[in-house]
């Protein structure tokens, strides 16, 4: 489809002014290539600024049209060497088509409105209107096509990376409009220094964002480092935190959480057991029920660490969720300072609780085998509405079946055997 758009645009429009096209296209590809994965609307859509600047310039210049130039430029953007190296053909092709089509639409609008316009300060309003329409169309075509592609490939449209599309939309349009203005201003002022300054400021901002993304990953890495240390204490809990984070994530997706909510739940899962770092290892490894004193010591230590973590402003909501993951839906159990006897904790805390209990049942312990997935789900169901949040349990079951993977030991499928193991007083569902 995109290819057709490209070819037809080539047939119907005059050649762009290549002298202008080349540097802009290079810049556009560069920005697309170095796009940092940040949940940040300005960044993800910033390439549209360059595209619109070029479009306005190409449309206004006499003897040059924007249609083909923009379609080709936009199409080149998403092509990355990595895709070709790994011989992935479908994705770059789909991206190419989608970008080219959007670029062609924007180019057409600009051509129709601005061709042969005599630029001056007075006509800037004209440019403003034309580029708003073009930017809007560009963003709209992109959004619609991505939605469709995601739906055909993945069968559902609320996958995390794309769930923020509407939020991106406004940012894209704004950037596009201002990009168009820059293009016009460039033509009026006729000074190349302007481009140097724009690119300069922009590059500095981009470097900062890059540093930001690195720092954010590192933040996660530091927490993970601690989790590893914690898990090294007991070989049976190895990987527990990462699995709980995974389960929490798929439950959240099933419950149609937004990107930020998912992020919060993932972080909460990552730190949910951090308090155990402070607990003497014998207590963690101890088989069976803890004595009252030991139990008190364990919770006191864990809460102390959570208090310390609460000093980290960013982690505040996550700590609250994590500290309540032992509270039941009916308000039972124990929890942090926000735990209120008789009231259910937040939905997020219920998610962590279910994920935590599920992983505890489906992984092996020193004193029992891993239980099967069926058994674990049945157990969650049995306590649904009491210890576990019914909606969370439902969502969890659906999400698990979608992963197509099975957790736990398949050979403990036998209900009788599982029950016998589970009735052992040493096994606590609370993980």
């Amino acid at each position, binding site marked *: 489809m995109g290819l057709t758009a490209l070819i037809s645009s080539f047939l119907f429009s005059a050649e762009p002014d290549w002298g202008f096209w080349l540097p802009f296209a290079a810049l556009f590809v560069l920005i697309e290539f170095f796009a940092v994965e940040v949940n*940040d609307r300005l960044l993800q859509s910033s390439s549209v600024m360059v595209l619109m600047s070029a479009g306005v310039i190409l449309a206004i210049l006499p003897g040059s049209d924007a249609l083909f130039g923009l379609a080709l430029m936009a199409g080149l953007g998403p092509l990355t060497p990595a895709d070709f190296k790994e011989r992935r053909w479908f994705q770059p092709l789909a991206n190419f088509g989608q970008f080219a089509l959007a670029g062609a639409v924007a180019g057409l609008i600009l051509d129709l409105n601005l061709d042969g316009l005599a630029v001056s300060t007075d006509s800037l309003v004209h440019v403003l209107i034309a580029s708003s329409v073009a930017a809007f169309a560009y963003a709209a075509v992109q959004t619609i096509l991505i939605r469709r592609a995601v739906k055909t490939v993945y069968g559902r449209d609320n996958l995390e990376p794309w769930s923020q599309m509407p939020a991106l939309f406004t940012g894209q349009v704004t950037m596009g409009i201002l990009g168009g203005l820059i293009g016009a201003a460039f033509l009026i002022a006729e000074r190349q220094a302007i481009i140097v*300054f724009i690119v300069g*400021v922009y590059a500095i901002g981009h470097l*900062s964002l890059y540093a930001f993304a690195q720092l954010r990953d590192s933040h996660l890495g530091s927490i993970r480092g601690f989790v590893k240390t914690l898990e090294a204490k007991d070989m049976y809990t190895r990987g527990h935190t990462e699995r709980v984070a995974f389960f929490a994530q798929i439950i959240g997706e099933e419950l149609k959480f937004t990107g930020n909510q998912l992020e919060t739940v993932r972080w909460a899962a990552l730190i949910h057991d951090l308090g155990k770092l402070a607990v003497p290892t014998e207590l963690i490894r101890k088989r069976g029920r803890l004595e009252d004193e030991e139990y008190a010591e364990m919770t006191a230590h864990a809460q102390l*660490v959570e208090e310390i973590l609460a000093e980290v402003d960013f982690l505040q909501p996550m700590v609250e969720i994590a500290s309540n993951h032992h509270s039941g839906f009916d308000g039972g159990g124990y929890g942090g300072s926000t735990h209120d006897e008789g009231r259910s904790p937040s939905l997020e805390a219920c998610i962590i609780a279910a994920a935590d209990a599920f992983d505890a049942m489906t992984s092996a312990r020193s004193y029992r085998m891993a239980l099967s997935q069926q058994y674990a789900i049945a157990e969650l169901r049995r306590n649904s509405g009491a210890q576990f949040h019914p909606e969370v349990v439902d969502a969890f079951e659906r999400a698990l079946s979608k992963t197509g993977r099975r957790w736990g030991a398949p050979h403990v499928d036998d209900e009788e055997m599982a029950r016998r193991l589970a009735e052992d007083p040493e096994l606590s569902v609370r993980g």
Partner: protein
Amino acid sequence: MLSVTSWAYVVVIAAIGAYAATLADSDLSTILTAVSALVVASMVRVAASNAGNRFTTGLAVAAAVPMVLGADLGVDLAGAIAIYAIGLAIVWAIRYSRGEGHADLLPTLVRRFAGYVVFATSYAALRVGAFAELSGEWRDLFPFAVALAAWIGVEVILRALLVFGKRELSRGYLARSMIHDMNVFLGLAMTGALFGELWPAIGWWALPIALLPYSFAHLAFRRFQETKVTYKQTIRALARIPEVSGLGIDGHADRTTELATAVGKEIGLGPVQVEDVEYAGLMHDIGRVSLNEPQILRMGYNDDDLARWSSEIIAESPYLSRVATHVRHQYEPYRKPGEQTDPDVSVVSRIIKVAAAYDWQVHQDELSPLQALENLHAGAAYEYDPEIVASLRRLLESRGVLTPVRV
């Protein structure tokens, strides 16, 4: 000390501004508009987190001023100086009356003014001078680039020279901290230049267009700084885990870090290394979380094990890979008899070694500061780096912790 002299500076600068205004070619309304733009923009802080400098968007306005006041070739230099002086006087008057009277406000005022004036003067001189022959685009670019370089030079030099009452900071650290936050500085100056370039052609339309790339950069600076603050908070919180679990002495990590960063700044490390010192100090004993494992308690451990465990935990985050190496070597002696110093043991490791040993002796062994320092002195040259011990001594003396021995 601050009040009278500080106000005197403000009055002097305001007077310079008023005098320059009488010489200016530009009309009064232009000057007043620019002054108010400078004042308003100076209220907007920009997060520069690499070395913690404070910049405001006033820098961008200052960079735009000579370009906006410039006609075809000439620049109204007197007008520009008037704008700077009056604007800065108002900004600082507001800051003082708000009670933001810390010691580095005064040097900042002097530095800012000098930097602005040098920038505008060199820009004006180059526009009519050396680069007047150049044609077209480059006639705008070269004077700006050279003037900007002059401005940066003045900033860096004055930063090192104008140290008011901050004996604990080496001049090297101050000068380098500016270079380290150069991205923010350049971003602001170039935004101003962008506005200045666009102004003659499209007037006030220049404002949204200049603001667009900048707002992107601004957002990036802010995000970076927020994450950095959060990151430090997290590391600090994690570093306290062994302490709350009774596996280390309370506050050791915090105190060691404070002392170590102060020593780092005193001996003239750059901001990057000082930051390494900070992270290394906070996490140098993080391996102690493993000390409640029965197996380890049974088999025993030594300092080298601790350093290894700590550095293994730190190495999990790629950002801290250097810090992991520093922490790995934190217990190595400065020099073994008959050998050269080990080049693998960085200055950061050596600082941590000294600071941690001092804090341990004072707070765990309950020695007096003087006794602890004497122990370090006794170990200097082999166990501890003598330069760092000397720096620690200077630091403690200037804080009044030690009373110098009198004979």
